[in-house]
């Protein structure tokens, strides 16, 4: 019996159901990562216990704190759902960050330039614009892969750089905020701003995000599309032979994951920054990859994972404030998460 199998026995006894095992695996991974985090905290000269306590009540101590955590969770949930679906079909969209920025740009432009007086319609228009442009940006990648088999990882990745450059230009020149000393675009019209919940101070995009979870779950588990995506992911040739049009699936997945990233972007503009601002995202598109994986490419899982990462990061800031522990630790942890998750996961399944 090999080392790993031995460990597997310990982590997850074979008699347990597959689902429970992978759940245990996730839990184990999270635990291990927290241990590593603790190690770093000690090195930074902090006390892990206090630090983690600070982390918890920083994130959950007050309504406002909870609200701030949710604000971060919203884009992670929305993008994570799209990526989870795409990854199920083995379409590795690494370009969510760029799609987010393109979506944000589109809805920002709409929310700034459209004449006032539309009220909520303006919000609607802005969001639609964001989704469409995000989806379109994703579709470029989809078409290249579907039509000529161009590796989507690379194309989506390179397009991130391009998207961000386009965004930068717009906020630097045509739509720059008058008087700003830095890269900041104009503020959106007040009526385009998403209303926020009292004392939580979370924009109502939250409900949209939450509503998407069951929807995504349904699409993945109950619809032929979701099933074809899995077929494609498991065995593309067999899927094709059974009449699945892989090209359409690939483009579809890029449209959906791109569109959702675009949606996340437009919510960041309308609900958080309320102006065209490069600060709407710091690698959310990449963090969402972790979320999708940590969530086991399953909708509920994505929801939980997003909340966990959000808790970690918003709490992590509290930690750095209260315990004086460098925030960089928090940047390191998600990656450590995935590594351990991969290991624990494989061990749980055994060879």
């Amino acid at each position: 019996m090999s080392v790993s199998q031995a460990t597997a026995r310990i982590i997850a006894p074979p008699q347990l159901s597959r689902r429970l095992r992978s759940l245990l695996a996730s839990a184990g991974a999270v635990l291990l990562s927290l241990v590593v985090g603790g190690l770093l905290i000690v090195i930074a000269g902090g006390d892990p216990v206090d630090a983690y306590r600070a982390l918890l009540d920083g994130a959950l101590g007050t309504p406002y704190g909870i609200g701030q955590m949710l604000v971060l969770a919203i884009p992670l949930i929305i993008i994570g759902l799209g990526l989870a679906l795409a990854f199920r079909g083995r379409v590795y969209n690494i370009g969510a960050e760029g799609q987010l920025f393109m979506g944000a740009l589109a809805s920002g432009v709409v929310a700034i330039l459209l004449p006032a007086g539309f009220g909520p319609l303006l919000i609607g228009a802005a969001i639609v614009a964001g989704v469409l442009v995000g989806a379109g940006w994703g579709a470029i990648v989809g078409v290249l892969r579907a039509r000529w088999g161009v590796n989507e990882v690379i194309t989506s990745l390179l397009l991130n750089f391009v998207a961000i450059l386009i965004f930068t230009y717009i906020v630097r020149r045509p739509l720059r905020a008058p008087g700003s000393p830095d890269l900041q675009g104009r503020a959106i019209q007040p009526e385009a701003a998403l209303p926020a919940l009292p004392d939580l101070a979370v924009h109502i995009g939250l409900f949209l995000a939450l509503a998407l979870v069951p929807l995504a779950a349904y699409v993945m588990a109950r619809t032929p599309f979701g099933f074809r995506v899995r077929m494609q992911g498991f065995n593309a040739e067999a899927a094709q032979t059974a009449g699945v049009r892989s090209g359409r699936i690939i483009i579809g997945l890029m449209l959906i994951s791109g569109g959702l990233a675009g949606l996340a972007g437009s919510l960041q503009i309308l609900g958080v920054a309320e102006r065209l601002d490069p600060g709407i995202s710091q690698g959310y598109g990449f963090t969402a990859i972790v979320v999708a994986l940590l969530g086991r490419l399953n909708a509920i899982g994505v929801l939980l994972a997003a909340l966990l990462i959000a808790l970690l990061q918003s709490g992590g800031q509290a930690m750095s404030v209260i315990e004086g522990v460098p925030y960089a630790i928090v940047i390191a942890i998600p990656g450590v998460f995935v590594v351990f998750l991969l290991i624990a996961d494989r061990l749980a399944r055994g060879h």
Partner: protein
Amino acid sequence: MRREKWKAVAVCLALALFGAGVASCGDDDDGGGGGQAEGGGEKVKTAIVLPCGTSDPWCKQGYDAAKALEKQGAVDLEITTNAPQDTAGVTRVLAQYAQAGTQLLLAHSTWQDAAFDVAKQFPDVNIASYAFELRDNVAILEEPIYQAAYLAGMLAGGLTESNTIGGSAGQDVPLCHAELEAFEAGAKRTNKQVKMIDTYIGDWNDAAKGKQATEAQIDQGADVVIACGGGPANGMAQAIKEANISGFGYVGDMSSQAPKNLVGSVMYHLEPYFEAAVNDVKNDSFRPAKRYDFGLADGGVSLQLNDDYSVKEIPADVMDQMEQVQQQIKSGEFEVPYEAGA
């Protein structure tokens, strides 16, 4: 059997890797200062939030100024470095401090939206940031570094033999644009034929690109250069060291990076800013919040010359001219033109 052996090796390597990451984190004093000072009487509970590490010139200036105030016993200081770059993230950090009863928040970057958001949520907190609009409890910090750049430009005009000077910046934003324009204007003042090359590399951190940009300017004959932004400045320093030409440091004293080649640095001093803000908080005069703008006259910015500079002699007359103008600026007779660009 062999497979197990491989696994064992692999595990070791994987662990060793983390080990490396951890071990390399050495063992000196912890970066952020803990808020141990128990209820420091009239001390103002202050926190400074920095967008970068404290070895970055921009952040170091803020860090040092705040530390200085702490030493004077004026403030009871908390520090956050490497704060997240996204608005939501910064908002969280600021909010954390506001929540912890911090009286004065020094948000050391262009964080207007975050500041406004927190200011609305926590009416008691006072915030100073690089905003461009005022709120009752959000004050504006100005960075008139272009004034010092003008003086630097005057020296550059005198130093250049090729009559070509260069400036590279992270982005074409007003802050940098004004700095480069002033540098050019200053140079023109001491040397009519001066030609200035501007390069915007489109990245605040990529020192390699910054270096490349300066080198390209050097190839175009530039023999005195300046930069705007951490990456560009670091790259510039390395480039002039290798080409052994002259240049000016940005925001902080960068002479340690190119001791022989830096004529000096256009310095940004935050002590007066922070001091003013702290005092306003102390005397309840912070609100309605104001625009803190300390130029050359008030010691907010300065041109700090580097004694080790040895590429060539600075012509005495140029030096005198520069010092005169410095006086005129201080006395207000002369005002450095501010060109924010498109």
